[in-house]
């Protein structure tokens, strides 16, 4: 198992995703003799996980769960939060607009909980590299530990420094730079410096429009071109079977042919009846805003 490479069977030391339901998944580190409690009962790693295929069903005392191969997307919805994180919808857009692909060198700050980092590493593996900067020491150490556990540590360098003051720790090597910090305008110069002489792409994620305003000004001042600010929102459709009752207007003395037929139809079902349809509904509440994504191109210098 690796977050950048599939394997068939679960081995000791793997991180597997236990799928309980659509909104309940938990990552577990597979260890001989270890046990994991779920709401469906206990999972014994030695018997239930090690040597089994990813995707198989594990029976517990009160039901069963599926054990899934880890992917950056499953990690995003199950990781332990240490900060606010980026979700798959924004990550997808960032990955495409930054033109990430195998072999790309990417700079990122801040690392935060590593949600985006895993997605970046997956996309640039096996020959690319991620230089990520996190000024919070504890978070930097924790995320480094996770990268090693997920067997992608060789494709990433975590630096514990302040990107606005000290930059990314590399210069002239990056194909793409991503910023998710409170004052990205202070890091635009460092971003430019980190990017290749031949140019590259940059992106900044900010929740507030004032931040976007200042970032765009900084990008322009540093000679970036193709500035583009977008917002992307996910709409989820819950599939439902709903039943719409038909109204009863009482007996109709008017002998309109059409209406009469309708009436007959309804009477067949004893009373006005109902119509059942398959449709989708929106969840009661949805995320209305995550952040603005500003993209820019660094021209060749």
């Amino acid at each position, binding site marked *: 198992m690796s977050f950048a490479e599939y394997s068939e069977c679960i081995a000791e030391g793997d991180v597997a995703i236990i799928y309980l339901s659509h909104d309940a998944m938990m990552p577990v580190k597979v260890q001989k003799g270890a046990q994991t409690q779920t709401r469906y009962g206990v999972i014994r790693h030695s018997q239930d996980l090690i040597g*089994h295929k990813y995707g198989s069903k594990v029976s517990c005392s009160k039901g069963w769960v599926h054990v899934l191969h880890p992917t950056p997307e499953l990690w995003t919805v199950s990781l332990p939060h240490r900060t606010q994180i980026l979700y798959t919808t924004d990550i*997808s857009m960032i990955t495409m607009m930054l033109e990430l692909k195998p072999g790309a060198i990417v700079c990122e700050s801040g690392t935060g909980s590593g949600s985006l980092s895993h997605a970046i590493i997956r996309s640039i593996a096996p020959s690319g590299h991620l230089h990520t900067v996190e000024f919070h020491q504890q978070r930097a150490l924790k995320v480094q530990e996770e990268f090693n556990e997920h067997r992608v540590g060789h494709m990433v360098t975590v630096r514990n420094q302040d990107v606005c003051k000290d930059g990314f720790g590399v210069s002239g090597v990056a194909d793409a730079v991503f910023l998710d910090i409170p004052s990205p305008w202070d890091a635009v110069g460092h971003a430019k410096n980190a990017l290749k002489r031949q140019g590259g792409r940059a992106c900044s994620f900010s929740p507030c429009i004032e931040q976007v305003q200042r970032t765009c000004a900084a990008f322009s001042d540093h000679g970036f071109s193709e500035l583009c600010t977008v917002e992307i929102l996910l709409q989820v459709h819950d599939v439902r079977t709903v039943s719409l009752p038909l109204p009863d207007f009482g007996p109709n003395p008017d002998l309109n042919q059409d209406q009469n037929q309708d009436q007959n139809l309804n009477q067949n079902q004893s009373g006005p009846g109902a119509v059942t349809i398959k449709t989708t509904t929106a969840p009661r509440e949805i995320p209305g805003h995550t952040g603005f994504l500003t993209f820019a191109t660094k021209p060749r210098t």
Partner: protein
Amino acid sequence: MADNGDDDSQYRMKEGDYVVLKRGDIFKAAQIVAKKKVIFEKQWFFLENAVGHLYNSTFEIHGGHLQLKKTSDTGNSADSKEVAGVDNRNIVDDGKSQKLTRDDIEMLKEKGLKGQEIIQQLIDNSSTFKDKTEYAQDKYIKKKKKKYENSVTLLKPSCRILAMMYHGREPGKICHLRYDTLAQMLTLANIHAGSKVVVFETCAGLVLGAVMERMGGFGSVVQMYPGGGPVRAGVDSFGFPAHFHNTLHEFPLCRVNALLNGTLEAAGKDPSADEQAANVEEEQREPEAEQQGSPEELRMETSTDVTERPEPEEPEEREKEKRKEAKEQEKKQRLDEKRKKLAAAAAVLEGRNADGLVIASRFHPCPVLMGLLPLLAPSRPFVVYSQYKEPLVECYTKLKEQGGTVNLQLTNTWLRHYQVLPNRTHPVLLMSGGGGYLLSGTTVASGQSNPGQSKPVQTKPGKSKAAEEEPAAKRVKSTDTDA
């Protein structure tokens, strides 16, 4: 890690390269071919002058030839701003503010004046320009620039650019797949180097190209195709290096059932039957090829290679005979080639252990998904695109019924662009109405018995009731327990 200094060769355009022309938000894919005319935004020109220049260079068009634009020219005429009005209370639309007539402007154009100069003339001859607010002046210049600028930027193709280009130019050809939706697909399907991905698309090859770009030439891609042959015009536009094509396989959709039933004779055990089938395909191929050559297709896909037709020189019998023989030979070779390709693709699929499935077609997605899902290994993602939501609702219902998948999600995305300017920041007035819908999920081992497992799953009595409460686990009947 560090990039090798001054080696710019990979950043320079060569003859035969695929490039994307850009002006403003308009893109067009083209190939650099000597003496080949390209029409872009009502102007025609030759691309050969671009050879040797760096990608991302901007050129001026002069008499059909490209001339590198100097960087100083690209800056806007900010210095021309001297006076500006405060509001528009005294500006009256009498239609006489522009002193230049249409003929005058045509004259200027014919004189070969640069776009920048024409705009300056227009400004100088506008009586109201000085009274306009600073913002209105900006807007005026921007509008005129769009109209009179005759420059073009040449970009290196990428998934981002081509997806935006297709969506802007010919959305009908890619089933109205918006670029943010394509971005979601690539991520949801966990497309990455080293995996084995099955793709079925009728999006001119855009989706296939996007998948190949993300795989970087590592792993394998199997393109399932309907009819006589795969459509890959869009793939060519990506300009992938030759070795990428070694990872690309193709498999006819009409043989999927045979593959799944184990009755596919790909290895050519029965050559006569195989040939028959191939002949049928060959026949099907003809109209398909014609279709591909339609003027509509050619308009954008400059990549559809021009087949070399030897001119008929000697109308002699012998020559004719010879040609016939050669044709026969060629046909046989093609059949052989086809059989080999089929065998190779079948070998990739046979293990039914593909790592990802991406579907984006004009066909009803439900049978396509049900037909191709058995090719996936357990615990692998799949994603289905459809321009319409209802068929995906049907897919969703069917998958829930038959089991073998978890984490099903039916979604679409909204994309809003912003204009960000000092004191003039707001969402862009128009946004795309529809970018299609996605159904995504993950496969799991189906059925009770898991022959691949080293140990049998311990079954406990009385668990079924509890299992029924698990919403994703409703399982009316299980699909194939692989034999």
